[in-house]
């Protein structure tokens, strides 16, 4: 379980996160929604220690990660898989080398075992036999799926998805949504999905959280989000420029 309490961070003159409180229960998929620039990606980067908050607390399985030394932080990071918005694949490596990188760096598995694990994970995301391809020759959807295969290579307890469907066509978005769901069912992983794609959010979420002006202003199930009278949630779901959320 991840517990975030009173998380604050200022970037330049802007208070990006201003007291975020959020729980991510074990085995659940929590979708963090919000307009562009509301701090969703900053929250995501704080959880994994890529950014450091000014104050507040982030507990992962009871362990405080804010202020951890690099060595200890890396041990926490090994429990996470991360799918970046662009896939963040290494251009100089093949698909197989990309997916196998965390295994080569953190395990003593023999090459044959790594190759087998890479092939398995690529098959899980529907990309059998692409190990020798270079990232530059992949479509946007394939890049995200390879990124996802890399994220699950180490059998993580948590997966963070940063805008997993952004830039994809509706059919490929559905493929990614189904993958997120199937991974949760297959390996019981706890997921945090940062997105502003409502279709995707409804598809994958066990719980939803709306971030606005640096705070979580709503948490609830997808059904509660559909029926809530919270004007911010209503405005966000309906995609209206008029309401309490300033455009």
């Amino acid at each position: 379980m991840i517990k975030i309490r009173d998380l604050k961070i200022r970037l330049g003159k802007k208070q990006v996160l201003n007291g975020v409180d959020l729980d991510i229960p074990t085995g659940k998929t929590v979708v963090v929604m919000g307009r562009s620039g509301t701090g969703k990606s900053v929250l995501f980067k704080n959880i994994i220690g890529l950014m450091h908050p000014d104050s507040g607390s982030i507990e992962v399985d009871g362990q405080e990660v804010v202020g951890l030394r690099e060595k200890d932080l890396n041990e926490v990071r090994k429990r996470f898989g991360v799918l970046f918005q662009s896939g963040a694949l290494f251009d100089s490596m093949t698909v197989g080398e990309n997916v196998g990188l965390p295994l080569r760096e953190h395990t003593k598995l023999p090459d044959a075992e790594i190759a087998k694990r890479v092939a398995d994970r690529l098959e899980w995301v529907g990309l059998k036999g692409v190990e020798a391809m270079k990232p530059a020759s992949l479509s946007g959807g394939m890049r995200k799926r390879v990124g996802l295969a890399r994220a699950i290579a180490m059998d993580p307890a948590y997966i963070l998805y940063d805008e997993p469907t952004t830039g994809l066509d509706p059919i490929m978005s559905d493929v990614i949504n189904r993958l997120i769901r199937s991974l949760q069912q297959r390996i019981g992983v706890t997921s945090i999905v940062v997105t502003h794609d409502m279709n995707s959010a409804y598809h994958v979420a066990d719980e939803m959280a709306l971030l606005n002006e640096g705070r979580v202003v709503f948490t609830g199930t997808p059904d509660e989000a559909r029926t809530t009278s919270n004007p911010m949630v209503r405005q966000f779901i309906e995609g209206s420029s008029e309401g309490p959320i300033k455009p």
Partner: protein
Amino acid sequence: MTEWLEDGYDYLRDKLIDGIAEVGRIAMLVGDTFRKLGRGLRSFGLVVDQMDHIGVQSLMLVFIVSLFTGAVAAVQAGYQFANVVPLKFIGSVILRSVIIELGPVLTALIVGGRVGASIAAELGTMRVTEQIDALDAMAINPVRYLVVPRVVAAVIMLPMLTIIANFIAIIGGWIVCVTTLDVSTHTYVTSMKTFFFMKDLWSGLIKAFFFGGIIAWMGCYYGFRTEGGAEGVGIATTRAVVSACVLVLVSDYVIANVLFRFIFAS
């Protein structure tokens, strides 16, 4: 008038603070590289890849520049010796100017342009496309994985390239001497042997070792600090090359002073 002075003062103060902060950040990167050196060297395959990129792929450029550097040195020496110094000494002048100064410095400037730009552009692109964040997220330290192999490869390959550059430049000088200055091969070689001192060669190679580190660290530092998109990568690349070239020349003076006034003085 007072407002103009205050603005000028604020501008200079901010620039000074930025400059000090930049030096501090570079020093931290250098320190971090030494701390991660042991673990970084375990992935020796990455170092070998960079040795190919930094050294082997620079060979043709170094060859062409060195050949003409030696040739120009011979032409200049021939012109300045005319009616003043006998041409039988021309070999030693070319040899010593090449191995002490021209070989290491020109090689560093050429490699600084080619490799410094390439490292900054590569790491800068990795920064803006979240690849460096991805390394961190996978608990793979980017300094260990990206900086250590480049710095180690550069400090190994720059002296090697300098040895090759020295050799080619001496051949360039010999071609001009025997074809246009009427100096025989025997005279050229004898002159070089008479005034050759091992410490001259060592001084050039020691410089090249430090120049290699400077080029790789500048490329890595500005690559890591890249912000924005393509424009940011362009800015990082320019800064890496300019700062590497300036630092090569400044450190050349400092190292030459230390070597020839203290270490090789006797």
